[in-house]
């Protein structure tokens, strides 16, 4: 800790000294008699700025090292693998630039830009997850509130939840006879469990004190729900939503590989058939990066709903 604070001070000294050095005599106007204003970096805001900058650098250095190491290892693997080897970072980067130069072209159903494929996958996740939320949230509340219902559905949930999401695909294809609703069905069924379970757990964990307030006031069921249950459960619900979208994003790529047509999963499979390994690598990065964005966005949203 000591070293860090020393660094900080040194950094500050360097940054401020630049500003406090006497100005060249020639440029000093005749009215220089009045005191110079404090250099901005020495003002309170300036110092806060340098401190923030230092903190930012300290936070950014370890991840930068990690990523650098990752690229290095990747390069080593690609160099040492026999022909045709794994494409290296530079080659992949070049391919990515070409790919993202025109992300939204459309040459018929099986040849669309990468942008379209991402959007298709996101749309399926959104629809499937939306339906899951629509069913799962009310169900979760009811399961949490009524012990009988909880006892009723508990065995069903514990039986169905461990089933691999893709096992549901044939059922979807059989029932809907089409790939689009079938893949949405897979998203729905695999993302509904975290929503139900987290909502129900949240409801059963609402502190008794809050419910006692509701009881002393003899609030109506509706008021109990809107003023007490819902806000108390919201943090749990947000966790459920986050897990569920995470699962949905994991599953969609696999589902699209099987259903084909459009989407990131389809694209990966298509590029595999073309033996375009750069594009497969790029797809992996896109999937990871989009997942990261979704996760961070939801975390940010969840923070806004936190009280206390």
């Amino acid at each position, binding site marked *: 800790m000591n070293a860090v604070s020393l660094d900080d001070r040194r950094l500050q000294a360097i940054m401020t000294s630049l500003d406090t050095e006497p100005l060249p005599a020639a440029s000093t106007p005749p009215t220089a008699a009045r005191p110079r204003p404090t250099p901005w970096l020495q003002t309170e805001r300036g110092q806060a700025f340098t401190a923030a900058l230092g903190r930012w650098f300290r936070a950014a250095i370890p991840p930068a090292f990690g990523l650098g190491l990752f690229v290095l290892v990747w390069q080593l693997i690609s160099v040492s693998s026999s022909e045709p080897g794994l494409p290296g970072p530079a080659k992949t980067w070049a391919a990515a630039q070409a790919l993202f130069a025109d992300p939204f072209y459309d040459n018929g159903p099986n040849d669309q830009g990468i942008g379209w494929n991402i959007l298709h996958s996101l749309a399926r996740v959104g629809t499937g997850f939306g339906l899951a939320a629509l069913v799962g949230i009310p169900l979760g509340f009811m399961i949490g509130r009524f012990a009988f219902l909880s006892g009723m559905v508990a065995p069903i949930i514990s039986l169905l939840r461990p089933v691999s999401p893709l096992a549901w695909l044939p059922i979807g294809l059989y029932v809907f006879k089409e790939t689009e609703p079938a893949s949405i069905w897979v998203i729905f069924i695999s993302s509904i469990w975290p929503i139900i379970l987290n909502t129900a757990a949240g409801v059963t964990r609402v502190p008794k*004190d*809050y419910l*006692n*307030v509701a*009881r*002393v*006031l*003899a*609030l109506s069921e509706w*008021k109990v729900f809107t*003023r*007490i249950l819902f*806000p*108390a459960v919201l943090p749990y619900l947000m966790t459920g939503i986050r897990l569920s979208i995470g699962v949905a994003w994991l599953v969609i790529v696999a589902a699209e590989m099987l259903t084909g047509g459009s989407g990131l999963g389809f694209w990966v499979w298509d590029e595999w058939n073309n033996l375009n390994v750069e594009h497969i690598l790029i797809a992996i990065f896109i999937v990871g990066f989009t997942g990261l964005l979704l996760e961070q966005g939801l975390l940010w949203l969840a923070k806004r709903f936190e*009280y*206390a």
Partner: protein
Amino acid sequence: MHPYLHIEKASMVFDTKKGRFHALRDINLKVEQGEFIALIGHSGCGKSTLLNLVAGLIEPTSGVLLLNEREIRGPGPDRAMVFQNHSLLPWMTCYGNVYLAVERVFGAKETRKQLKARTEAALELVHLTHAMHKYPHEISGGMKQRVGIARALAMQPKLLLMDEPFGALDALTRASLQDELMRIVQETRATTLMVTHDVDEAVLLADRIVMMTNGPAATIGEVLNVDLPRPRDRLALAEDRHYHHLRHEVLEFLYQKQLRKAA
């Protein structure tokens, strides 16, 4: 004339994981309308449990509790409760917490403006106008307790149940709120049951002090009549011989007859 609150042979046994726990036994108490009862006893003897019984939050294992000759069958806004742990809803501001109660009690008859005025008045009573729009996690423990008091008082309950309402307050705030409480209770003629650990507070505020024996299976040990004239003034009482005598009685009960076994 029937007593307003009538507790007869009430006892409370909790079913816990480690078996049955006999908390209260054979509680008999009659409270007249407008009376101020202080409940005093060592920690864990069952004061909160007794208050919860009257509030209707729990049901006695045996015996009956009658309010206005009707059996207490559940909680209701005619019995406002100041919880020992304040129990504010953390997602609402202080104003929101009080407003929720005000709206429930007066919402059917009054305009929004009136409800707002009631809420603000209640918060002003506990000197919290400045912190009205803060959230519970932004205020101190004593302030939270005061919001809880404001919430209960704003409901203008017939029966006011208070579980150590001034426990977390500093001496000055405590004294000022005690004075306010005496004034309000005298004005509204609300019947009050108040749990306290503070002997001075009990003697200053109460008409009768109900002293409880130690648990388990606690019951009412003695009831002390506080026959000091009202309005009471804390400064005058400090030199009153009868006041000191009453105070001594309570202390004697607590520290000689019911001295807590070294636990």
